[in-house]
């Protein structure tokens, strides 16, 4: 189960993580819907790109620009959060969407927890695989913690001050003592 478009849905993708003795060149990618590490994609692009369903994931220390010009090849791109406190994934997501033009499913994987998901959704994630020991229905609530935001990000192209008419001092009913 994952969260996608603000609902809990079933999921048939498998995330491939290399074990220590596997290399990107030699690992066998099983058939089916597999989200492969960036390195595996790069090493086996020739065969992987002929598959019907393609997915890739980026580690937090990998650069989204490595997928420049080919983001549209993927049904899903995932970004791994090795620890929830590692915030690089937020900028990776932003860059994938805003700079590289990716419009497909963008999934947060790894140490994904309820209390970070509001921010994740703002920078462009539309799918979340919360950590398996957590209740996914509980995690879903994290997407609605706030109903307003000040600044632009991926979900909100205009900052609050361009979107709404904000009360100034004259209309706020407060005097300038």
């Amino acid at each position, binding site marked *: 189960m994952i969260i996608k478009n603000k609902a809990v849905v079933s999921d048939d993708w498998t995330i491939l993580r290399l074990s220590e003795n596997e290399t990107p060149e030699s690992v066998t990618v099983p058939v089916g819907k597999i989200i492969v590490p960036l390195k595996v994609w790069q090493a086996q692009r020739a065969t992987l790109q002929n598959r019907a369903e393609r997915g890739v994931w980026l580690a937090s220390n990998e650069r989204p620009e490595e997928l420049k010009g080919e983001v549209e090849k993927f049904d899903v791109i995932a970004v791994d959060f090795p620890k929830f406190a590692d915030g690089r994934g*937020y900028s990776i997501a932003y860059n994938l969407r805003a700079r590289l033009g990716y419009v497909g499913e963008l999934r947060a994987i790894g140490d994904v927890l309820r209390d970070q998901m509001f921010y994740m959704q703002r920078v462009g994630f539309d799918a979340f695989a919360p950590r398996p020991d957590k209740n996914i229905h509980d995690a879903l609530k994290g997407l609605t913690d706030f109903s307003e935001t000040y*600044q632009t990000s991926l979900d909100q192209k205009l900052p609050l001050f361009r979107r709404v008419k904000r009360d100034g001092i004259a209309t706020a009913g407060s005097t300038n003592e």
Partner: protein
Amino acid sequence: MYKYDVYDHQIVDERVAQYRDQVRRRLSDELTEDEFRPLRLQNGLYMQIHAYMLRIAVPYGLVSSAQMRMFAHIARKYDRGYGHFTTRQNLQFNWIKLEETPDILADLATVEMHGIQTSGNCIRNITSDEYAGVAADEIIDPRPYAEILRQWSTFHPEFAYLPRKFKIAINGAAEDRAAIAVHDIGLSVLKNEQGEIGFRVLVGGGTARTPIIGSEICDFLPWQHMLTYIESIMRVYNQYGRRDNMYKSRIKILVKAIGIEEFKRQVEADWADIKNGPGTLTVEELNRVAAYFTAPVYETLPANDPGVALYKTENKAFANWLQRNVKPHKIPGYAVVVLSLKKTGIAPGDASAEQMDVVADLADRFSFGELRVTHKQNLVLADVKQSDLISLWKEAAEHGMASPNIGLLTDIICCPGADFCTLAFARSIPLAKMIAERFDNLDFQHDIGEIELNMSGCVNACGHNHVGHIGVIGVDKKDGGEWYQVSVGGAQGNDAAIGKIIGPSFNFQQMPEVIDRLLHVYVRERLEEELFIETVNRIGVTPFKEYVYATPINVEDTVDKDAYGFIEKPDNYTVQRKSRF
């Protein structure tokens, strides 16, 4: 000052609700302590030695009388009747129960306050000039920009889990009173030759383990671009700042590692497609926010009040206070008054609930209902009529807030140290107290004149020791004892400099004598009218060093007299260092 509109209220109220639920989940063990820690930190809640500490944001140091009364209420209801003003112009309560924190934050929200992003690896409370709006040397009032930055940085989704904390300071006057050179980003508002307003942007300054002065990344950034340009700085830092070693994770280390030129190149590359985009500030928004910071309606008054002039000749104590604690105001007949929170015997920056109520009252009666918190941990009434000075002084004195020591030796900046802080190597509050007692004599202090003594309990340097004229810092000698290293020649402001360490460390009991010897060299060497820091700059550190170490400092290993109240046996005191935060 700024007032929340419906959006500000809604965002802060939703935050309280979110946090309340997080606390509930922590208490029911749905959240582990590791998962909860960053959440509570981003609401200002630290774990300290004895209890939780709650840090409340005072945006750019500005606080209304109603907010100050709320602090008093919180001090009484949830703490032990006092609070602590910090060098980052915030307020901390030291004896907080986790279960009560959602209610405290809900109470604060009713007066437009919160603890958002006062801790954690995110953009912290923006600090500014404590004399903004009234300083005679002001070029541009920085507060509207600080408020716009506050809103922009609040819950910025991309920058909530940075490699490390991130501090922005902004100054708009000729003299830098916001220490912009030792911040992650330091902004000075200025006007160019065409009369346009913009910022000089410094990046990568800081103190702590690697004290370093910020580098200029942009000499003139037109104000419209403030938010997008900072966004790009943040994005480069978020991606490339080190995360493997927390001592090397501040932006200053990144800037140093790749050089300011390369850093600037990366920032400008990132900026290219958002520059002039929708994040660009508008005149309407700037005007909307700036309208909250217009000057109050001043009366037309004579430049000098005859009553004050007369009373000054009759009352020495009042005259001393006028000299040290009252600053010139740009409007004739008005004055800026500093209320000292540095009475000898009190921890620097501490205020009791009663004092908070009193200052709220004084603000209402004498200064348009507003106060400022200074980075030197005092309070300021910025718009006082000179004709009110005598009554104000009497009332402040009655409540222990008229020590005429602003800028003098006992106006010490001091971090919480080992009495509260789990990271400390040594105590700092009792040391400040002991030094203040030794040099309590006011004539002596006036003779020494302006000097900044800054103290921290460990290498993190929360007490600004690196930029103190005299800096004191607790060091780890692995023997569990309390040792302090001393530096001289640091400075903040326009001539910011990092102090030089004079030599091997001293123990707690030796420290007052060390300070005494440093002052002795100054008195011996000074030219007429020369301040301590000027003498140091002229003659260098060596004469100080030689004299301090010339003869051993013998102190009887006297049992410290319960210096702060709750460390009962300081003689066999060992510093408690538990986990971080």
